[in-house]
């Protein structure tokens, strides 16, 4: 089997020893090809490029400078735009997702009627004061979420999945009428005793 073109090139350039290709010793065709490749390389290498005069280089640099000055500052490459655009789009999508989620919560609260039977003292449990964590007071995002959800009633919270099964909120929202009335009575009694 004859040597492949890349193998012939390696032998002709001397990067591969002829001895490493035993086929060459017995194949006149491949040997001839190697010799012809060497001859062509030699012929091509013998072609000079005339060196321009030293004055040409000064003139050339001046021409390039003139063209560059007319061009202005290098422009941002198309391929570098994603590095700027992708993070910006990601942030925009994240903000949009938060806004939609919060808005959905407000919308559902608006269409769901407030339970008239809920005892009045229960509402302050979810007041803004309780939601504000002094340690995270500087976190504007958290503050925003706290403010938006501060007046959320139990029904809305339950629908939003915030009142976990087994929690006090979950228990309150699942009381029947008589149980709620009894809870109201107990709370009023407790408030009267504490002087509130």
């Amino acid at each position: 089997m004859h040597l492949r073109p890349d193998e012939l090139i390696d032998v002709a350039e001397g990067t591969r020893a002829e001895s490493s290709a035993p086929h060459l010793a017995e194949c006149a065709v491949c040997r001839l090809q190697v010799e012809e490749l060497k001859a062509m390389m030699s012929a091509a290498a013998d072609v000079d490029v005339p060196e321009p005069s030293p004055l040409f280089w000064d003139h050339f640099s001046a021409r390039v400078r003139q063209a560059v000055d007319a061009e202005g500052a290098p422009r941002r490459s198309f391929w570098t735009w994603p590095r700027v655009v992708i993070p910006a789009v990601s942030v925009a999508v994240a903000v949009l997702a938060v806004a939609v989620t919060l808005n959905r919560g407000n919308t559902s609260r608006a269409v769901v009627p407030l339970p008239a039977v809920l005892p009045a003292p229960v509402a302050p449990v979810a007041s803004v004061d309780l939601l504000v964590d002094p340690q995270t007071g500087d976190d504007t995002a958290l503050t925003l979420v706290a403010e938006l959800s501060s007046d959320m009633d139990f029904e809305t919270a339950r629908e939003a999945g915030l009142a976990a099964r087994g929690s006090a909120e979950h228990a309150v929202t699942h009381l029947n009428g008589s149980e709620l009335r009894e809870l109201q009575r107990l709370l009023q009694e407790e408030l009267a005793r504490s002087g509130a």
Partner: protein
Amino acid sequence: MRPAERGLADLDERALVEACLSGQTSAFDVIVERHRRSVYLLCYRFVSNHEDASDLSQDVFLRAYRGLRSFRGQSSLATWLYRIGVNVCLNRVSAKKLLSESIEDRQFVDEKAESAPDRLLKDERGARVRAAIAQLPRKQRATLVLRMYHEMSHQEIADVLGSSVGAVKANFFHALSNLKKMLASEVL
């Protein structure tokens, strides 16, 4: 070189590119000065005349300047410029018929002291080889020019042409084989 450029001359390629991008256009002058000869010779190998080689070289540097932000330093600046140069040259030579200048048209400095008959013979032989190279298919020509005249490795040529080392060697083989066919009737 102006005083402000003396400091720039000491910078490496990456720092020069950064300087350009930060608004120091004189840093680009240093890049031009370092690479203008090799870029010009590359262009000359493709078009075989001084005027076109000069115009193409200027075009190469202008394109490099425009695309400087896309240079990420993964290859050397020279390889990147060669890549631009090969593209510019191949586009030009396919759009414009090659105009090879006559020996008399040359106004260059000949630094080699050769006898007039020897010089003439060599020039004529060189003109025939150049004409044959100019007729090679584009990738074969680019491979031969980069390998023979710019001493680039097969891997570097593969980087410039966006192909594999195997393809570069195959292109080189076919370029030399075609050259031999075209020059078969010539006495070299």
